């Protein structure tokens, strides 16, 4: 599911499938648990225990997931550049575990298949889709529905699943306003928001 537009469509599809564990996560619960320890030991001092970013950029939030796009994007970055005192020196296994933890913290559900250092696999795991799907199943499990306050208190469970419905895959529905979750303050969007833009396969570097 390499294409951005397709991955968004996938997010929508996944919402319907929420509860099915077959496609969940792309990482295991064990990986996420090991990743939590590794993250708190090596990353939290700058990026925060809640991934909120204190000395460094935040690693939580739907926009963060959208910007990294796939697990490959995040993995490729941290295995070269982080942590600054020992860049790239924690070993691939640890970096994979940390990616798993960051995904889980952002709402993705663990599954049976482990995350491995396989570029094609990593590139096929859409961070916005997985984290949105996790958030949606969490919401389904707790029908007490995220109120604005709850959303604020728990930034780890953003309501990103709603925006996926408005996105390319078909012509822009012209109801872009609904893309923003009612809970989040409405903010201006890019001029091209909601429009179908051309996309490419990931990892094509000119």
């Amino acid at each position, binding site marked *: 599911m390499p*294409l*951005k*537009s397709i991955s*968004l469509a996938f997010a929508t599809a996944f919402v319907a499938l929420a509860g099915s564990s077959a496609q969940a996560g792309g990482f295991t619960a064990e990986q996420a648990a090991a990743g939590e320890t590794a993250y708190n030991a090596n990353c939290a*001092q*700058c990026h925060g225990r*809640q991934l*909120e*970013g*204190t*000395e*460094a*950029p*935040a690693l*939580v*939030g*739907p*926009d*963060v997931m*959208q*910007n*990294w*796009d796939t697990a490959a994007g995040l993995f*490729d*970055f941290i295995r*070269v*550049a982080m*942590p*600054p*005192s*020992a*860049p*790239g020196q924690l070993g691939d296994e640890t970096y994979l575990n940390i990616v798993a933890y960051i995904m889980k913290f952002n709402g993705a559900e663990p599954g049976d298949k482990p995350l491995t250092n396989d570029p094609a696999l990593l590139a096929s795991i859409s961070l916005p889709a997985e984290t949105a799907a996790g958030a949606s199943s969490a919401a389904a499990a707790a029908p007490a529905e995220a109120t604005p306050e709850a*959303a*604020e208190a728990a*930034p780890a469970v*953003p309501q*990103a699943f709603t*925006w996926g419905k408005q*996105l*390319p895959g078909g012509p822009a529905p012209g109801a872009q306003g609904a*893309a923003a979750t009612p809970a*989040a*303050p409405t*903010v*201006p*969007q*890019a*001029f*091209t*928001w909601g*429009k179908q*833009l*051309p996309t*490419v396969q*990931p*990892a*094509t*570097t*000119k």
Partner: protein
Amino acid sequence: MKIELLKSMMVATTALALIAGPAFAQNVKENYVPVTDEMLKNPPPEEWLMFRGNYANQGYSQLDKINKDTVGKLQLAWAWPMAEAGIQETAPLVHDGVMFLQTNNSIVEALDAKTGDLIWTYRHVLTELPASWSYQLNQARRQKNSIALYGDKVILTTADAKIVVLNAADGKVVWEKQVLDVLKGYSYTVGPVMAEGKIISAISGCSIAGTAGGCFIMAHDANTGEELWRFNTIDDPENPKQGESWGGVPPENRWGGTPWTTGSYDPATKTTFWGIGMPGPYSELIRGSGDGSVLYTNSTLALDTETGKLKWYYQHLPRDNWDLDSPFERILVDQEVDGKTQHLLVTAAGKNGIVFALDRDTGKYLWHKETVKQNVVTGIDADGTVHINTDLIPQAVGEEDLICASVSGGKLWMTGSYSPLTKAYYVPLTEACNTVAPTQTEFTAGNAVGATKFGPRVLPEGITDAGLLDAVDINPTQGDHKWQYRSRPSMTSSVLATAGGLVFGGDAARNINAWDQETGEVVWSQRLNAPIGGYPSTYEIDGEQYLVVPTGYSNAASSISSAFPEIPLPTGSGNSIFVFKLPKS
């Protein structure tokens, strides 16, 4: 020239002082000497009165006791830990024996510049923001530089978009004003320049979703806080070309244009010069601006300080697709050529490190000189038209291109110095590239609108040294490399040039160095506790010259540390200042 106190505020201040008494351990600087307009125009050599030492933003001191012969004898006089963690980019100011030190989260400390004793602390209580506004929350931890001194006041621009005016003697608030709406995303990250009774400031946060359509350079009355004018860097109804350059994108979908380095000021023409940052979203594909040049992003603006009107602009990087901001120091240089004084503006304007010279009276392009490896600008015509590498403009979401310099520079906030001694501009730089790929992102409150995936910062092919200090010879017709000093670790501080023939600056390996301005030879080096940061500066008290060196947590070091893994960065933040002087003879 004293700033008049508003009567009611005087009462409030007095009342507070009575209540506070000695219990707060807040001291007072007795008989503080006010900073006059005259002083700001001709700063006494012993003092460091503003951001870069003078209105011309030169970062040059006329002091020469510390020089090539004596620098080896420097000793530590005192040191001080800063009040707050966060990225360390402070510019300590010194006047009347007091050092005014601004720290992240809008904290100001006044220290005895000779002894290092604390006189007072002002801790601003920042507006509370929702935890999910992470990008905006981070702004308070990356305040970029300085405060301003004026009359008997200290002028602080805060991370929650306020101007706060303090009494220089005791740190008490005289007045404060909410300038722009912090809940939209506005914040100050740079300090103001004071121009004859006006506080000229520029807002940051213009790449945060809620601030769409407006990014401002503003003037306020120093006495009353009244707004006198504002100039919008991304929406100028008086110049139709500006709007057209966004290719149909209405103001409410425009972001960026942040002027995030304190501007320079030419009192002779009453003109202030500011550099402007990148457009948002970063790529034109997401922005929707087609092949438009997206003015006034990545430009130099010359504004009339009396009216706020635009005198001229020059765009250093049109059609930015890679977050290659061009807001850095605009340095004013006068040079005599054939008995005529040439008025230059010199700047390593943007992250791609290209040095430009302009005629500052007209904005006319004079010349440019490349420094670090860069692949986005392919050429510049004699009339100053900049051509970009259109092969590197993404045509599709997810299309990845390798861009040099990187989003962390090349050039970054670390500011160069101009030395009238050698007529050279000393520019601290980093050799780095990164991949850039547009993403389609839904914007959220308090977060940025870049909509881009960046790869890790890596060295350009064939280059093994991340650090570069480039000494560029300046004259009105050309710029040339006088020397280039390369090092494995990246440069992490601004530089200071002095009449002692030295350039001071430091790196990620925690070394503060002094280079010979003529030769580029390192004539003194001292290892400290953390990457060298902020703006080293110098002052003199009782006939002794001091050198102040900020150190601490450095984004610039963190982003490229993989290029020099043999020199691990500390994991502690270490934000401090170290003050050196020569031993008493």
